[in-house]
């Protein structure tokens, strides 16, 4: 029988840190609309958080708790971005033309909504999917 691994500190810290990393990545994602940040960086930090979870727990446990097929996630992300680009074409504008406007929303008050955010969501999905796919397929490699 294998001895019980001594990783209580690692697990506890990871659980705390993962929450902070995910929150920070969402903050980076939103900041990207006007300031440094955006879908790419937000996606990468999210991927970093997931990789930290993979490292400190085992792959099976994370897969059962986060049942996501990252290859499909990457494909879906690029599809969202391309579809956002095509949105402009419906209104007779160029491909990738973006639109934004100010709306009065019930809780948030006056808010700026932009199609570029949807594009960024696609980018974030693509980045998370690709990064995790690469890292897990390297880790599965047995020499």
């Amino acid at each position, binding site marked *: 029988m294998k001895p019980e691994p001594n990783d209580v500190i690692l697990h506890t810290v990871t659980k705390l840190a993962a929450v902070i990393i995910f929150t920070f990545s969402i903050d980076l994602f939103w900041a990207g609309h006007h300031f440094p940040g955006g879908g790419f960086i937000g996606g990468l930090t999210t991927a970093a958080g997931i990789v930290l979870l993979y490292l400190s727990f085992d792959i099976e446990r994370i897969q059962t708790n986060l049942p996501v097929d990252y*290859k499909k996630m990457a494909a879906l992300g*690029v599809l969202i971005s*391309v579809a956002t680009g095509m949105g402009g074409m419906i209104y007779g504008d*160029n*491909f*990738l*033309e*973006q639109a934004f406007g100010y709306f009065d929303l019930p809780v948030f008050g006056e808010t700026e909504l932009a199609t570029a955010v949807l594009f960024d969501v696609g980018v974030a999905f693509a980045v998370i999917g690709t990064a995790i796919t690469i890292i897990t397929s390297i880790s599965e490699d047995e020499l």
Partner: protein
Amino acid sequence: MNNLLIWPVILPLIAGLLFILVPKNIRLQRTLSVVVLAVIAGISITIMNQISTNGIQTLQLGGWQAPYGIGLVADMLSMLLVLTTSIVAFCCVIFSFRTIGKEREKYYYYPLFLFLITGVNGSFMTGDLFNLYVFFEVLLVASYALISLGGKKVQLRETMKYVIINILSSAFFLVGIAYLYSVTGTLNLAHISVRIAEAGQDGFITTVAILFLIVFGIKAGLFLFYWLPGSYSAPPAAVSALFSALLTKVGIYAIIRMFTLVFYHEPQITHLFIGILAALTMILGGIGAIAYWDINKILTYNVIIGAGFILAGIAAFTTSGALGSIYYLIHDMIIKALIFLIGGVVVYLTGTTNLKEMSGLIRNHPYLGWMFFIASLSLIGIPPLGGFLGKVFVTRGTFEAGYFWLGLIGLLTSLMILYSVMKIFMNAFWGETVLSEEEEKGTTKGVILPIALLTLLTIALGLGPEFINSYVEIAVEGLMNPQTYIDAVFAENEIP
């Protein structure tokens, strides 16, 4: 602004992404791939007609005007190549239904195939130097996966070589872009052209031009082709047909574009250099094609000869030379796909690539044999088949430019091609029939259709050139007058 231009680039991308979401549904993937490629062919014909009535079409992505935005530019040359690409890919994808195997189909064969087409079409249509690099990478990454898909030992070995040489040349590509940007301060091809025309092409820019020539030369299989015969004969026939028909041609297209639009001021240096490279390529490729007894090796060396010959017309830099180059480029894409598919069938039937171990296939497969014969004649340039016009105009172009040696080498290598393909015909198809139909390792069922389609195309290209002649002439006009391209990109905007 013409939104039709984006479809040849994003349609295969969207289809490929959808396939990743439904990896198990092979039938859907097969049907949709065929449909997508046919639709792209239709769209490119539409755009070609728009170009011939309204001039070069452009699309500035996101509405940002040139030179600040990144745009797609469809001139006649690009669209002819996009059309040929989709036809060739159409035939290759039908061919792969029967030959590629369940395993590869399950591991994202069709998505990778379509991503490759995205990259190829994007490279043909982009009007931005950096995006040319990006689309090159798209098609290269797809080709890395396609060449290694299946994981046989020889595939992995050749993939290593292929990846290393291409990463190296991509790095040089980036260095070249950086130099050019530091000199001109722009990445828009038309804008670079304007800036260089204003400032004059000095020694530094000519050096950068040579750097670009080396980069694209590696991709095109020009002179520095030592990796090519191994890499292109490793993957299955459908993939190697696609590679030899399309990938080297993207490099050739890039050379044609850069050296007619941007670096056209010092032809006595740059274009002579292209001519010397083309001559060396043809001679070495010819020697390779004659020397080997391996059918795949002979065919891949023919790819190299073709690359050399197309660039001989560009080296001449005359109207007939360019006309010949475009004709031969279109012909070469079709014919290389054709002979690789036939070669693939021969290998499937006999189970070997060694010509000495096969014989007399024509008794059981007369259609295949005679189609190979037609393809060989077309490859050599016998009238009235597809290769004839290209050969005539390229040779005339080189003579007009005074490069008699280049034209003669081109004709001489035709004899080498004749010898090499006749060697295949005499050994594989002619002679005593050693394999009865029962002993054959594969069948020709379901693979004859794409081969017949390509054979018909090469005959049609020879018999009825007037159908595409008007288009090709517009393409040549565009190549010889870069100003039309520049005017189309900037429209009425002021050039900063």
